[in-house]
């Protein structure tokens, strides 16, 4: 089921000035797995609820499978929705929860008792909880509740699945398993899935496409790889993970950082003027130049050493391979940026690396 959103506007009730969605447009193809990410208050949950029909936008359109659904009640849209806190009916058994969507169908459309029971069994097998049909939600663990909520949403066979922070209440280990499981379920059932999360890592891991939202607007809508390599704004870069920012000047095809003890690097094709360079902690290395700096090892991550470098006026933390870190001197190094993105006027102007095996993509021509 494809979903198309056209210039959706939604103001917060009461406070007239607060705008939750400022003309959001989005296209989700049939079979797509899209993650909406952003800090809280970015409007991602409002957008999701608008698609489901739980929230009424002031203007704009929601088109599901080529059909505008504005006039349609939530239940006529046939979407599966999983709430952040699962919203399981606490007075019903797991089986009753799952069959709810079938039990409330008008009699002429409702499957027979046996068919419903068979469907419940089938879903319980799908969510790998075949023995819990008679349990009450309060007895289940977070991950189990999550899966029951999913089965309940899937019982009526919706083709579109909307997930609101589905992993938020789970502990990190369970999160990763459930995440992978949902992705395989999506592929197996041929669903179209839209997921809301404030956890960028989760989004990058699970979705084909990640839509980054900020202040009721979409800042960037791209696949994880593009987001990593060419974030549209400094916000996206920062939101997607730990980053370092260096203000500086471009002159004669080189970026010269204002920060002392950081080496300039070539940014071919970029017009002269001020710019901001942003890098991930593993995208810089250290070179012995006799500069007035000191280096401390402060930890380890992903098999790399985390180093704190005192650049004189600022401390930065970078990641280097253990083998390299072991041979580094404790002082007298400069920071050499190997890969960076340059932003100008809040937009990406250049992205690239200095390593030979990774040619710089010249974005300047497109701007």
């Amino acid at each position, binding site marked *: 089921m494809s979903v198309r959103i056209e210039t959706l506007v939604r103001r917060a*009730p*009461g406070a007239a000035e607060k705008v939750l969605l400022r003309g959001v447009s989005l296209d989700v193809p049939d079979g797509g797995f899209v993650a909406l990410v952003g800090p809280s208050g970015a409007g991602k949950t409002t957008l999701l609820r608008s698609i*489901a*029909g*739980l929230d009424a936008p002031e203007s704009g359109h929601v088109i599901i499978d080529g059909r505008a659904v504005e006039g349609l*009640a*939530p*239940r006529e849209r046939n*979407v*599966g*929705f999983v*709430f*952040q*806190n699962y*919203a*399981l*009916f*606490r*007075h*019903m058994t797991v089986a009753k929860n799952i069959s*709810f*969507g079938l039990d*409330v*169908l008008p009699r002429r459309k409702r499957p027979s008792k046996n068919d419903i029971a068979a469907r419940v069994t089938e879903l319980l097998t799908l969510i790998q909880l075949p023995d819990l049909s008679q349990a009450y*939600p*309060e007895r289940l663990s977070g991950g189990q*509740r999550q899966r029951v909520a999913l089965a*309940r*949403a899937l*019982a*009526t066979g919706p083709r579109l699945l909307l997930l609101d922070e589905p992993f938020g209440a789970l502990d990190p280990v369970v999160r990763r398993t459930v995440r992978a499981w949902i992705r395989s379920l999506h592929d197996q059932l041929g669903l179209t899935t839209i997921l809301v999360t404030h956890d960028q890592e989760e989004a990058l891991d699970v979705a084909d496409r990640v839509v980054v939202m900020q202040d009721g607007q979409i800042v960037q809508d791209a696949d994880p790889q593009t987001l990593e390599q060419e974030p549209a704004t400094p916000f996206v870069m920062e939101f997607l993970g730990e980053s370092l920012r260096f203000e500086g000047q471009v002159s004669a095809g080189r970026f010269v950082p204002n920060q002392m003890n950081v080496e300039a690097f070539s940014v071919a094709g970029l017009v002269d003027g001020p710019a901001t360079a942003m890098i991930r902690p593993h995208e810089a290395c250290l070179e012995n130049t006799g500069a007035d700096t000191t280096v401390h090892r402060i930890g380890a991550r992903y098999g790399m050493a985390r180093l704190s470098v005192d650049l004189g006026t600022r401390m930065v933390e970078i990641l280097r391979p253990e083998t390299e870190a072991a041979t580094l001197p404790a002082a007298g190094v400069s920071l050499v940026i190997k890969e960076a993105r340059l932003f100008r006027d809040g937009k990406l102007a250049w992205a690239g690396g200095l390593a030979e095996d990774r040619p710089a993509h010249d974005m300047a021509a497109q701007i």
Partner: protein
Amino acid sequence: MSTTQSSRREADIPRWLLIAATYTIVGIMLILPPVLVVAEALRNGFGTALTTLADPDALSAIRLTVTMTLASVVINTVFGVLAAWLIAKYRFPLRGVLTALIEMPVSVSPVVAGLVWLLLFGTQGWWGQALDRIGVHIAFAPPGILLATLFVTFPFVARTLLPLMEQQGRDDEDAAMLLGASFWQILWQVTLPNVRWALLSGVLLTTARAMGEFGAVSVVSGHIPGLTETMPLHIETLYNGYQSVAAFSMATLLAAMAMATVGLRSFFEARARNAVIHGQDA
């Protein structure tokens, strides 16, 4: 070691004093009155007490009280659920005012509430004469008693449900709606089961209050024995007429009914609390 023991014993003294004082107060304030009421009722033996309850006026008072209580419990349960649902699950203009209005009967003296109905429906009241002409009698008649009881007991169901409903939020209802449930299906299968223990507790509180209401009913009913006297009013009439055995027998019955209700309520309240606790981790 002996010092810790003696210091503990010293700390025990205020504790025991406090416990003793509490039981003394409870004994005088709460235990003694019902015991005296029962003792007075049974002064001339159990048979005499029973005979007084079989008096036609007494039977009529019991019947009226039971009818009024049942009617106001049914009506106020419906309105209370409606009001709590509306306030907890929706945002609408003047929502705060509605919340405050629901609380009002708690703070207004029942006598004043009774007077209001007299002002509206009494023979000298706004609508009294017009209604009298078409043969509708509200003041000094059971409908007036019902109105007065309804007013006084209005907040109980709504106030018991509101905090729980607000805490539970709207997600369950939204989930049910997305799964295709209609308004009534949501109400019967999701909302009400979620608050069932609190609802029961509110209903029992309403019952207890409706049975015992004196002030408001006293003003609107006109105290006509056999016709508009509820149990509390009849007790007063009997007592004022020096029929103390009859008065105390009736009082014993009323107290027993109220205590049974309150007992049931505290039983269900405990279950409601459990439901809340489970609701939080669910």
